């Protein structure tokens, strides 16, 4: 599903944040990418959804070589990858329903399709009764569930969650992890970028550990080792 071949990412100020990365994430896998802050975890996530381009190497997502992806092809890729962030990135002036709808509207989905899909997704994330609320009327965990709902509306094959529990307390964190596991059980590949030791250890899923931009371990039933 996701293949990195000798991927290196160096920024224009000569700072290398990913060095000669090789990894292969299979379809339907749940993979945690762990490491301390500033080790290059987020860069890996950005490389997957083409927010960043590799300086060297090759990246293949869903059989598509996106190493030199053209700008006009990026929207097509993004509709196949759901992205979730630590800061939720919700529109404060839009309701829960509108935030989720927005993702479909800007991609040209028909109104009929939107009306059918959005309530189903909201039900999946447990927010079917809070569709009319605004983000500031929700808890952190609920806001993150809205963000996950938004990332799911395109029925993506991959979800990239970049520190999705970073702003949440332990109860909300568990709720979000449970939701990601549920989505994974439906067959969606989940890439979880985190530095939360407890979360990673409780998952008992594949763990890729990064240190200074280098993969230092890749365990099938892994633990947080750093």
């Amino acid at each position: 599903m996701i293949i990195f071949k000798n991927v290196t990412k160096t920024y224009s100020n000569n700072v290398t944040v990913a060095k000669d990365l090789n990894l292969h994430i299979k379809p339907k896998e749940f993979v945690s990418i762990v490491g301390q802050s500033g080790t290059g975890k987020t860069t890996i996530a950005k490389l997957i959804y083409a927010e960043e381009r590799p300086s060297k190497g090759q990246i293949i997502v869903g059989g598509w070589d996106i190493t030199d992806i053209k700008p006009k092809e990026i929207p097509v890729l993004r509709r196949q990858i759901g992205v979730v962030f630590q800061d939720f990135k919700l529109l404060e002036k839009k309701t829960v329903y509108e935030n989720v709808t927005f993702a479909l509207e800007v991609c040209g989905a028909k109104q009929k399709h939107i009306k059918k899909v959005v309530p189903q997704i909201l039900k999946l994330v447990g927010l079917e009764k809070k569709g009319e609320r605004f983000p500031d009327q929700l808890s952190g965990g609920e806001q993150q569930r809205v963000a996950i709902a938004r990332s799911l509306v395109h029925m993506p094959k991959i979800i990239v969650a970049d520190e999705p529990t970073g702003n949440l307390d332990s109860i909300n964190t568990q709720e979000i992890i449970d939701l990601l596991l549920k989505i994974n059980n439906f067959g969606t590949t989940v890439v979880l970028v985190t530095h939360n030791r407890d979360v990673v250890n409780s998952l008992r899923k594949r763990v890729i550990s990064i240190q200074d931009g280098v993969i230092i371990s890749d365990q099938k039933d892994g633990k947080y080792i750093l």
Partner: protein
Amino acid sequence: MMVWLYRTSKLAIQNFWRNLWLSVITLFILILTLFSISMIASLNLAAGQAIQAVKDKVDVDIFFNPQIAESEILRAQVFLEDLPQVKEVTYISQDMALENFKVEHENDVTIQESLTNLSENPLPASLVIRANNLEDYEAILTQFENSEFNKYVQDKNYSNHKLIIDKLSLITKRIYNVGIIVSLIFIFFSIVMVYNTIRVTIYSHREELNIMRLVGATNWFIRAPFLLEGVLYALIASITAMLLIYPIVLLASPYINNLFAGYNFDMLYYFYQYIWQIFTLQLLLSLLLSSGSSMVAIGRYLKS
């Protein structure tokens, strides 16, 4: 396509309203630009028409001795018509000259009475010469004076309109040059203002735009609301500029027409005649300015 247009238009109108003051200032500058350019264009058009009206008035009348036979005058007409600089030569016989004189002074009782008392027609026959160009008259007259027909001439009437035309051209040219500079300044400010407004709009919507990019909106969907916002500016500005220009033309028209009294020139008539062309040009110019600036601003954002 309709869904796409509806959604992007909705976003464009939202952008416009949410930055209302900035939008109003941008519109103000754009309207000033259109207004100044329209004024310059109108002045140019009016001056062109006025100069043409003066030029149309220029001709040379050659009056012949009453003893000269009509056949000789007609030969002189052929001679003149053969000159390359001559546009047309009209023969006015003695009878026609008298008729014209009567018509011109039909309200003057004294003249009408004295005409009836005359035993013979005192008015000479004449040839009215129109040249292709104003500068040709002197050459035509020189050639005529060197011809055999010069000896038949009683008098020549060459009113030198060239001086008026030269003066008019000079004044127009000066106003035009100043107008061009003023218009260029306004064009520059318009571009900067629209560009800046769109940049501010982009900045205040950066979260929304980031999310759009993240969820897979195409670049054209992201661009379209800003482009349409530019179109909205252009439409409002060109309509407002026309609404401002119309009463000014209406008020100024009698004064300007007075300046050209006796000439075939009516400012209001020209305004009505060219009203759609003026509006279309204003619309095209404002579209170019506002949508062009919008495209550059959003293009820079999308590249970043």
